[in-house]
């Protein structure tokens, strides 16, 4: 193997770790020190090529590294100690795994001679993380550190991306070896596909051009695979409707007239109806998961031809059998499709398309995202709409998990990929604030908004301190409904309003809390103040502002596809069942 970076004299394993990170051009390492990584921290102390961001909990380190990767496309890096440091990182790793985010997590381990002896702060990190990583390694020899870290970055970023854990025993970081960083990686067992099968691509295009009721369904793979421009080109040339999944928002611009909104459990009426009724479906970097197509039997009760482009063969025909599978990088496959289309003389069926759009416009007329704009209580949807206006659609919006997440997804019109940062697959409450940290560090001048709930924010509230230390001018947009709102919504629909443990009691005074961390705190109680408060907050370009919006406690997210139902079986906001008047008073 050729190598780039190298030393002539022997250096410690810890120094090798740092040199590897330099070779990978890492800009930030999110971490937290402890016994097993002290050699690494000592080596880190002596360098200034990357910045170490000291979080206040290892979970946040991994989330922040994950958000950095989502925002930039580069591999995010976290560094944690053995035992509790490692287990604290697991939620972050599983979150990144479910959304296919490229991160490398370096964890300390007890000295190799103590492994298996229940040593202080020993945990089988490779064992614990095995089901939630793309791959993991235990380094057993100082000579293997460089090649292992090289592989870790390569595996994390290539193919279908994902988290890779490198577990390094403390004694290995003290041993000496020459440093030699490989230039490239050759692995006989791992060769991710790049190009799609040309025959399949031709076949797909032919089917697309024959469609009467076509639909394009784009997911997180379009964003992660940097295929947005290719998708836009293809969609514009064909003139077909496009929907994005929760993970795919921004992959196709929300303000484009061909965009029919997000689909799925809380998708728009038109997106879900078109998904159900189309005759040819092009799925791009999406995986037909349960929150997207609901009940697969119901979905398949309508006959349609499905073309599925994905880099991961195991995503194809997993929940829904497809007709034309295309395994390959979405960017390359869409690029090839566009080239074929440029040379193609056959045009889409204009008359059929016109009729299809008329049907879709009819569905659009239902205005499924309508809400009461004359309310005297702040409506959560209104806050997001104003956030969109005040930030001119340019902000990075991170969110936690719950109703606020769905409102952010529905009402903030994402026109660019990598701007909407949320935990779609694992649905991890507590990601919002550390995600905002990762975005703000990735793009220091950008506006970063963390849309959260009073439940979620408390799951990583300690990071207010990190934000102070690193001067991160994030704006927290907390939609405070004094409930675990999404839980309360399900209890209303499926448990006859028995609100078991979904009330958030004994909330802190968030304004004072923010202030005590050295930030600006604001509480907003009237709809008329929403816009001016947002403007004021975003005008404070160098301050972290925590905005506590006291919102309508009773508001629910619509449309809603109940669990196990088909996607066209939506409960709408104007259904009698959703009327707030029929519900008991909330606490």
């Amino acid at each position, binding site marked *: 193997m050729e190598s780039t970076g190298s030393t002539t004299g022997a250096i410690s394993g810890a120094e090798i770790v740092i040199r590897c990170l330099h070779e990978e051009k890492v800009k930030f390492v999110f971490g937290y020190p402890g016994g097993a990584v002290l050699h690494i921290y000592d080596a880190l102390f002596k360098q200034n090529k990357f910045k170490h961001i000291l979080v206040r909990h290892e979970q946040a380190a991994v989330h922040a590294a994950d958000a950095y990767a989502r925002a930039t496309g580069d591999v995010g890096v976290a560094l944690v100690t053995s035992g509790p440091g490692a287990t604290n990182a697991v939620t972050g790793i599983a979150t990144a795994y479910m959304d296919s985010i490229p991160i490398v997590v370096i964890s300390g381990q007890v000295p190799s001679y103590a492994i298996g002896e229940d040593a202080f702060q020993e945990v089988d990190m*490779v*064992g614990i993380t*095995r*089901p939630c990583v*793309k*791959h993991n390694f*235990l380094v057993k020899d100082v000579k293997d550190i460089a090649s292992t870290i090289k592989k870790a970055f390569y*595996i994390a970023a290539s193919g279908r991306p994902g988290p890779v854990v490198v577990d390094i025993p403390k004694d290995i970081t003290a041993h000496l070896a020459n440093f030699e960083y490989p230039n490239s990686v050759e*692995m*006989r*067992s*791992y060769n991710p596909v790049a190009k799609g099968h040309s025959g399949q691509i031709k076949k797909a295009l032919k089917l697309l051009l024959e469609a009467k009721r076509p639909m394009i369904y784009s997911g997180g793979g379009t964003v992660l695979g940097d295929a947005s421009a290719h998708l836009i080109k293809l969609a514009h040339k064909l003139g077909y409707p496009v929907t994005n999944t929760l993970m795919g928002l921004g992959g196709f611009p929300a303000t484009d007239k061909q965009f029919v909104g997000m689909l799925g459990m809380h998708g728009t009426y038109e997106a879900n109806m078109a998904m159900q009724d189309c005759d040819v479906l092009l799925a791009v970097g999406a995986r037909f998961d349960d929150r997207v197509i609901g009940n697969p039997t119901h979905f398949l009760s309508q006959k349609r031809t499905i073309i599925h482009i994905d880099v*991961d*063969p*195991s995503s194809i*025909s*997993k929940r829904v*059998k497809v007709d034309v599978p295309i395994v390959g990088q979405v960017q390359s496959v869409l690029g090839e499709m566009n080239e074929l289309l440029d040379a193609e003389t056959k045009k889409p069926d204009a008359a059929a398309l016109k009729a299809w759009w008329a049907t879709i416009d009819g569905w659009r007329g239902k205005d499924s995202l309508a809400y009461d704009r004359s309310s005297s209580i702040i409506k959560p949807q209104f806050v997001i709409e104003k956030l969109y206006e005040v930030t001119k659609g340019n902000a990075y919006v991170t969110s936690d998990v719950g109703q606020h997440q769905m409102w952010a997804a529905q009402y903030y019109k994402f026109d660019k990929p990598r701007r909407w940062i949320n935990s779609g697959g694992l649905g991890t409450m507590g990601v919002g604030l550390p995600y905002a940290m990762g975005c703000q560090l990735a793009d220091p001048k950008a506006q970063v908004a963390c849309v959260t709930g009073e439940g979620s924010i408390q799951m990583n509230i300690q990071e207010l301190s990190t934000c102070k230390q690193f001067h991160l001018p994030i704006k927290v947009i907390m939609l405070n409904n004094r409930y675990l709102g999404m839980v309360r919504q399900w209890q209303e629909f499926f448990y006859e309003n028995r609100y078991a443990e979904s009330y958030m009691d004994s909330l802190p005074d968030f304004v004072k809390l923010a202030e005590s961390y050295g930030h600006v705190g604001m509480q907003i109680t009237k709809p008329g103040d929403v816009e001016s408060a947002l403007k004021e907050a975003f005008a404070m370009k160098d301050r972290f502002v925590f905005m506590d919006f006291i919102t309508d406690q009773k508001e629910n997210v619509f449309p809603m596809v109940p669990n196990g139902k088909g996607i066209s079986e939506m409960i709408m906001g104007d259904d009698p069942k959703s009327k707030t008047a029929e519900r008991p008073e909330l606490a």
Partner: protein
Amino acid sequence: MKHIISLLMENEAGALSRVAGLFSARGYNIESLTVAPTEDATLSRMTIVTSGSDEVIEQIVKQLNKLVDVVKMLDLNDGRFIERELMLVKVKATGAYREEMKRMADVFRGRIIDVADGSYTVELTGSGAKLDAFLEALDNSAIMETVRTGASGIGRGDRILKV
């Protein structure tokens, strides 16, 4: 349907648990799993006997292929193959059983490899189905102990799984 999947993996620590973990995490059936190094010390060869619908088998194959340590694999049922399993059965060999057990072992081309006062140990090799048939042919109360290796499989003729 029953499938026999052969795979070659990097002979790394934890390789077996990656495969076993995949089966349990995704709820796939696993009837038997055997693993041993090959003539190339960097590779382990694994034989997995599993069952499921065509869709499930397709997913199993894809998920196994996705494991970073898996170098190559083959669903033996996609072509012609040979399956062999070794079984040791300790049977009662008292009274009338003493003659009958010897006869049964002969019929199934088994070998008696240990003789004791009250028991024989029979060694039998064959497909899983043949071993099952032997056990069924025996009087259940005569069986004292059985141990099976799980199946190994290899393609016929020029169907070769090699790096």
